[in-house]
């Protein structure tokens, strides 16, 4: 890393406030297909973003030239831009939206494999891709290990001094089966987490590989998901994305303010809904929680320096606060959270999700199944789509299983469901307990202009929803 404080001292610019944020990151992608290791890919990135505040207008200039000369040139450009557009500013900010926080954060990692010992990971990826091919009905297998090492630092003219180090991992296992022309793909859902190479635990992964391949074959042999209104039991590896799309995005304050209307979209939530709106059933409790160890988007400070604290966004079904950093809170006069985040050094911070969790309730999985007369259990997201106001959604899953008279029965392939956000969450009938709670997330949550893909975490139990429109593959 570079010494940001020295760089900050060396800047010869006139601004009301200056911040420097550096991000150094290495992403290693290790993939195997059908027993063959693909070319290893190691992506190194490093750069500095200069932020200046002049007469209430922020401007940003990012550079991968982290020399003193490079950063000073970026600072000059940022100042020139802030002055050039001063007459057109949307909102006059003050330095109070950049808290002078000081501190450090580091992901906990049990094990970090030295680069000289990484052959073991190559061998494991190859082995798993071979294990996934349980017989000739499996036509394709894929294994991906993603390892991310990131260090960010932030200093500012009003005294912020933050360093945060993240170890992040993701694993995908995939098997595609072709049984007499019926093709089905089954994956492990691509789990992601903060942590070290303990994530690549061989024995559980071998068992997972075998199960996934067998399920792909069973699904290819199974009947099509029926069409109609059913109770729907969503497992965490699907429900996390439902939470992401139909709770997370619509609660982003910058969307509610209209900033995203040209790209990601607006929101059905209005400013006056906070503290009032019954978002879903009384069983619905959702938190913004950047403090959960091991969840993908845990941190101590957001990218503006705001300290990260746990807050309820929805409590007993009532909407409490939005997902928005200090700038959006100031603009909207609404309560928010420390979630102004940028994808890297080359983008300005905007309102994002981080860890957005559905809090556990009191139902075991067995209780939810036995309470269902006519329903479908769905696992593992396959397809997702939602409108720009975050109302009308449609999801497809890899794995479906009928629930008949309180019992799990036949597998069904191509299970899909669709609905409208508000009525769907009002139909939340039972919430799973800690025994069926899982932590998921994604490396790729997209929004923003210019575009930003950010990493998010979601913890949720399984949940039961009543009276949902369900259908099968190719069936409109």
């Amino acid at each position, binding site marked *: 890393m570079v010494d940001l404080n020295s760089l900050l001292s060396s800047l010869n610019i006139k601004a009301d406030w200056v911040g420097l944020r550096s991000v150094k990151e290495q992403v290693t992608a290790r993939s195997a297909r059908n027993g063959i290791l693909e*070319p290893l890919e190691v992506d190194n990135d490093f*750069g500095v973003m200069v932020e200046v505040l002049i007469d209430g207008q922020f401007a940003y200039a990012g550079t991968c030239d982290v020399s003193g000369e490079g950063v000073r040139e*970026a600072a000059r450009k940022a100042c020139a831009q802030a002055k050039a557009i001063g007459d*057109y500013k949307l909102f006059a900010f003050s330095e109070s939206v950049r808290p002078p926080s000081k501190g450090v954060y580091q992901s906990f990692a049990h094990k970090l494999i030295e680069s000289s010992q990484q052959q073991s990971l190559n061998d494991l990826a190859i082995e798993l891709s071979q294990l996934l091919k349980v017989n000739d009905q499996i036509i394709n297998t894929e294994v991906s290990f993603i390892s991310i090492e990131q260090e960010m630092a932030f200093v500012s003219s009003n005294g912020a001094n933050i360093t945060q180090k993240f170890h992040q991992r993701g694993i995908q296992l995939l098997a595609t089966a072709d049984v007499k022309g019926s093709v089905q793909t089954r994956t492990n859902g691509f789990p992601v987490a903060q942590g070290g190479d303990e994530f690549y635990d061989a024995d559980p992964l071998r068992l997972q590989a075998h199960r996934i391949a067998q399920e792909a074959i069973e699904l290819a042999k199974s009947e099509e998901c029926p069409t109609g209104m059913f109770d729907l039991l969503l497992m965490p590896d699907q429900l996390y994305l439902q939470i992401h799309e139909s709770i997370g995005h619509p609660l982003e304050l910058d969307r509610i303010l*209209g900033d995203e209307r040209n790209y990601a979209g607006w929101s059905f939530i209005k400013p006056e809904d906070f503290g009032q709106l019954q978002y879903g059933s009384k069983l619905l409790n959702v938190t913004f929680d950047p403090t959960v160890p091991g969840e993908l988007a845990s941190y101590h400070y957001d990218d503006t320096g705001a300290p990260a604290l746990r807050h309820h966004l929805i409590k007993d079904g009532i909407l409490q606060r939005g997902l928005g950093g200090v700038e959006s809170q100031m603009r909207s006069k609404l309560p928010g959270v420390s979630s102004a985040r940028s994808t890297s050094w080359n983008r300005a911070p905007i309102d994002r999700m981080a860890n957005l969790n559905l809090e556990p309730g009191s139902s075991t999985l067995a209780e939810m199944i036995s309470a269902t007369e006519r329903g479908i259990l769905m696992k593992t997201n396959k397809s997702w789509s939602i409108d*720009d106001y975050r109302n009308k959604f449609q999801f*497809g899953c890899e794995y479906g299983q009928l629930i008949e008279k309180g019992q799990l029965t036949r597998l069904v392939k191509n299970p899909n469901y669709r609905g409208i956000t508000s009525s769907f969450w009002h139909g939340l009938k039972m919430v799973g307990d800690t025994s069926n709670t899982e932590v998921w997330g994604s490396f790729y949550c997209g929004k923003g*202009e210019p575009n930003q893909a950010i990493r998010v975490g979601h913890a949720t139990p399984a949940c039961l929803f009543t009276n949902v429109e369900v259908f099968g593959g*190719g069936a409109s």
Partner: protein
Amino acid sequence: MNLKSWETVASNLLNELKEGESLSLSLGAEDSLFMRMTQAKVRQVTQIEQGKVTLHFFKNNRNLKVALPFTFNTQRDTKAAQEAILSCRNAVQILPEDPFIQLPVQEGQFHQEASVLMDRDHLMKTCLEQAKGVDFVGLLTAGEIVRANRNSAGLNQWFKTSTFSVDFSLYAQNNQATKGLYGGRHWHDHEFQAIMKKKLAQLEQLSKPIMTLKKAKYRTYFSPSAVATLMSSLWGFASRDAYQRGQCAFKKLVDGDKHLSPHFSLRENFTGGETPPFNEMGEMPPEILAIVENGHFKNLLCSTRSAKEYNLPSNFASSREGLRSPEILAGHIAAEKELETLGTGIYVSDLHYLNWSDVQQGSITGMTRFGCFWVEKGQIVAPIKDLRFDETLYHFWGTGLEGFTNKIENFPSTGTYYHRSLGIVKAPGMLVNDFTFVL
């Protein structure tokens, strides 16, 4: 972002190679302005200078890729890349042989500079002045982009361009919106003014009370913009690798189980010069490659790696095997008579959040967005509330396709994930019977 510093660094690295080693170098760089606007004011303004060089290192039929920042500072970039080569030498020793290795190719020399000096301050101010008094939201992007390749087989390619785009929406008081895009290499104030004038006129149409339609099958016209969104949002449907893996929406077409409409022809077309005519390995695909011709399957995009794996000829697609410069050929419907030809049905201006709902059947779901209308007897009746659709490409490019308009529009890529994208989609308007809306 000058050629000389790139060539110096690249030559330094190629001179580092020892016997039995090969190297491909691929560069992407940009100097970009991003001005984000909402309510015709500036929300954020950002300038980014960034470069990334990818070293693809080969030895003893083993290979790996290492990417690192590239600053156009010859000394610093050379030093960083030399260290990366050392790490490649160590890493390659523990890798197994790669049976599908894609060794560096000699495709000769290519040099194209279409970089014009842009007064970015002028663009910013013109944009903001034109937007005054309107609920204008969007992004102005402007600046230079570089793509380049060098390798140890003698390849030397350099592509530099300056582009801009204003990707925007205008909102009416009833929250209905119209979408606009002005992009290219040469900014002309009068062109942007003309687009704004046209969009403001459309905004008036949107101020009528909104109509809610029931889910049903409707005769539907898709604007060129909606067709371009359809083309650029759907991944893998023309990929050889996806076909072999059981993930290709065109499988039934390729296998001859289904056909598409004789009105439908899709091709890759690199003749316009908007996209570098080489992939990340420096391979040069044909200038024009037919994917579907008059409803009949012609080619899937096949990278050299896929070609080796599946024992097929390569057509030098990128490693992702995605369409980089797709074009749907124009048809017989008079573009200026789009409403008249639609008659009664839905006019779709834009689409949003498309995804495969069943890739095996070629089924796609997504939403209408931005000022879509109910039309009766060729006249706009009212804007409609957004609808969700779920339909198969074998219907909208097949049995349900009535035809395309006779005018193609160009849609330069506005993608900015990680870096600014290059590329263009060329699409006409499209008329489909019995298009299925589900929610």
